[in-house]
């Protein structure tokens, strides 16, 4: 049979879907416990939401699914949502701007073209956005929320990398790059092409300092020491960003979270202004987020600080062991009604569902293996016969009796 599925897309089988729902459920529970509320935004958005300066890099925009809608005669395009945060920011501006604090979460698919079609072009993520607070505690809360979800999913050995968009931009400015050059270098960093920085026509000293800065790694105390060593003792202009990064890192350290500062660890999104965090399992990035204080005002809203985090469900599905998390299932009952007793059979299934059991109407094709009980229904007495896995039989005259027997 030839594959008819679109290149770069995937189906989720019943087994994978169960895993998906499990991850989604753990994420939802954690968010609700932290006081976040769920939202859902449309798959289709106007492209201009994403082309505004400071939202997505040209590298990302070159891979979005944009097209003319049925009423696109003005030439303005729509796009299949390439990112989860920007639509939520739009929703906030349109419907919730009166709320000083908005703690929102979502589970959504995003669409980005990938040329080989080997990686999926439709990606699922679950994310949380904390809008209205600018303190380092807000960033730390989002990291802790993400780590809690990963812990509940029993995913161990997660590495947390921290960076800071404000600090990178300030460093680029300090190197004496023009604003145009700064934007180009930042785009390269975001697109993951630091190796190609040499093509940008910077002079050698600039390039060496920049490479050294982007190569800086370590815990906050080590990081600040190396930064001072690289830039002589003078950190003027950088101090507020360093302080911000150090307070986020310090709080995470105090909470026992394992992290590393790695300035070059930023990707794709140009809207970040402050701390950026990325979560890795081995070499795979499984989530990330950061502070985007300028995004809402750039999109036409009021000046509102915000930060967010997202976990990549497709990646998590590869890491979660479903058996380890299997819930205790309600007992399963296969209701086998004789043709003349079909009506009673269906009523019985409904009653069993009400009582909290898993029950299926026998269509002749189900395997007995998935059930704890067989329940035969006929029009004459004994109306109901229950058979357990040991083939022991129990008779009942009414549904009430059936329920009583099952409880035993």
């Amino acid at each position, binding site marked *: 049979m030839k594959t008819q599925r679109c290149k770069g897309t995937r189906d989720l089988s019943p087994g994978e879907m169960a895993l998906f729902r499990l991850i989604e459920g753990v994420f939802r529970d954690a968010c609700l416990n932290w006081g976040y509320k769920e939202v859902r935004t449309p798959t289709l958005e106007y492209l*201009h939401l994403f*082309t*505004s*300066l400071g939202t997505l890099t*040209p590298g990302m*925009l*070159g891979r979005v699914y*944009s097209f*003319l809608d*049925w*009423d*696109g*005669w*003005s*030439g*303005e*395009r729509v796009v299949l949502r390439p990112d989860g945060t920007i639509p939520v920011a739009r929703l906030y501006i349109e419907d919730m701007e009166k709320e000083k604090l908005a703690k929102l979460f979502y589970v959504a698919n995003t669409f980005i073209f990938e*040329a*080989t079609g080997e990686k999926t072009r439709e990606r699922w993520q679950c994310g949380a956005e904390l809008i209205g607070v600018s303190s380092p505690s807000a960033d730390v809360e989002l990291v802790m929320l993400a780590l809690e979800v990963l812990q509940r999913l029993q995913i161990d050995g997660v590495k947390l990398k921290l960076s800071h968009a404000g600090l990178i931009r300030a460093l680029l400015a300090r190197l004496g790059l023009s604003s145009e050059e700064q*934007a180009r270098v930042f785009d390269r960093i975001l697109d993951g092409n630091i190796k190609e920085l040499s093509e940008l026509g910077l002079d050698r000293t600039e390039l060496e300092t920049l490479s050294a800065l982007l190569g800086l790694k370590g815990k906050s105390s080590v990081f600040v020491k190396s930064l001072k060593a690289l830039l002589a003792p003078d950190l003027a202009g950088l101090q507020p960003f360093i302080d911000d990064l150090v307070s986020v890192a310090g709080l995470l350290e105090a909470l026992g979270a394992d992290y590393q500062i790695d300035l070059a660890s930023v990707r794709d999104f140009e809207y970040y202004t402050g701390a950026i965090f990325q979560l890795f399992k081995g070499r795979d990035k499984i989530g990330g987020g950061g502070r985007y204080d300028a995004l809402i005002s750039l999109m036409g809203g009021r000046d509102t600080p915000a930060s967010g985090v997202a976990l990549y469900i497709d990646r998590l599905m590869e890491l979660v062991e479903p058996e380890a998390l299997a819930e205790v299932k309600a007992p399963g009952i296969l209701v086998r009604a004789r043709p003349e007793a079909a009506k009673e059979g269906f009523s019985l299934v409904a009653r069993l569902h009400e009582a909290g059991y898993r029950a299926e109407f026998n269509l002749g094709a189900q395997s007995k293996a998935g059930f704890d009980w067989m329940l035969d229904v006929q029009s004459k007495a004994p109306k109901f016969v229950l058979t357990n896995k040991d083939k022991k039989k129990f008779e009942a005259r009414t549904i009430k009796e059936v329920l009583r027997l099952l409880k035993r």
Partner: protein
Amino acid sequence: MNKTDSIKIALPKGRLLAETAARLKEAGWGLDGYKASARLYRIKSRSYPELSAKMFHERDIPVQVAIGNYDLGICGSDWIEELMVKYPSSALIKVGSLRYGQSALYAAVSPSEGMSTLEAVRERSGVVRIASEYPNLAEHFAVNLRLRRFGIFPLWGAAEAYPPESADLALVCGTVEGLADCGLAPVSKVLGVGACLIANRNSWEAKDMKEIVASIYDKTTAREESEPEVIEQYPGRHPRRLKAFPPGGDGDIVRLALPDGHQQSPTFDLLAKSGIGLDDYPSPTGNRRPATDLAGVTIKVIRPQDMPLQVASGNFDLAITGRDWLCEHLYQFPTSPVKELADLKSGRVKIVAVVSNDLPVADASDLRKFSAGRTVPLRVASEYVNIADKYARDNHLGSYRVVPTWGATEAFLPEDADLLIENTETGRTIARHNLRIVDIIFESTACLIGSRRRVTNAVKRERIEAIIRALQTGVKLN
């Protein structure tokens, strides 16, 4: 590798034809039929028995080579980039530049508008309107320029006529002098353009085309495409001053679009009979802003294909186009405010479904059966992609693929497409190509189109109504 594999090459009509023919003559290909006056588009080589060629509109060539209908192709690098910038995984490789047909793709503005630098374009508030025959390159340009908000008008031609009133920016292929003649100044060179040899990636790997390629392609001619660069302002000649053409729909001036190309003389005759005098239309010098004796009316000459979109977006109040292009527009944009205001009854053509005489298909129901029996998608070639798409949907053609074309679609059958959606006046061209009409989709005549939106200015409303009345009188006399 098999030396006896047949090799097919797609060759350009139009701007690159003369130089390409000269180069192939030098290379000794013996393609005698490859000339501007050719009436048959299929050509055999006298020197290479395995080689055959077909002539295409240049814009069709990268698509035809990418989908594997042709092994090789020669066309301008602008059309290659236009395809590759949107579809980077196309099975197309650039064999090399041929070092002729040099020009450039410029982003240009009308300096009278006060937006004479890229910076000024970027800082502009609201939607930046970009008109171009290269919509994919235009989008790429806008994204890289970090324009906050932009709208692209994909055009069939005459992009140079759009700024400043009908677009803020035009992406146009040409020279700085040529742009200045149209009253435009370049703000950025988007792409260096020149003739290129391209190949289908699978053919390139599977077939031995070395000898044929080597005969025209000298390795030393390979040159890097130049990067986009900001060019000097107004180099050379100062742009020509344009006659004022009022932007926006609020004033009392009526903005009328008239067709270029072969629709010009019937349109001129009709307008004359309607008592509307025109100066310099059709224009021997290519002037796209003819004068009229109608008070409160300004005129611009653009492609009829582009008119419905222009009326929809409010750039024009009235336009004379064909019902075929109005339908094409409305099928793509069902909520568009454009409507037909008057049937001008001239330029009558039928929009038809056409197959090769070799196919056992006589009508639409045969077509459905034929399509259902195939293991590969039916290839539907048309200039009218939305009409073709709707026809295929309405007739349940199952698995099909619409191949957009830019002219002389009848040459696509039978080898490069299975079904055409075409216009025909007499059916003679279709018969000459050994093709058969299997369905008449609708009849199209010239029509006056306008917007459904209410015109609030009373003077303007009266002027529009007067033009409609005049044209209706002209139609009766015609």
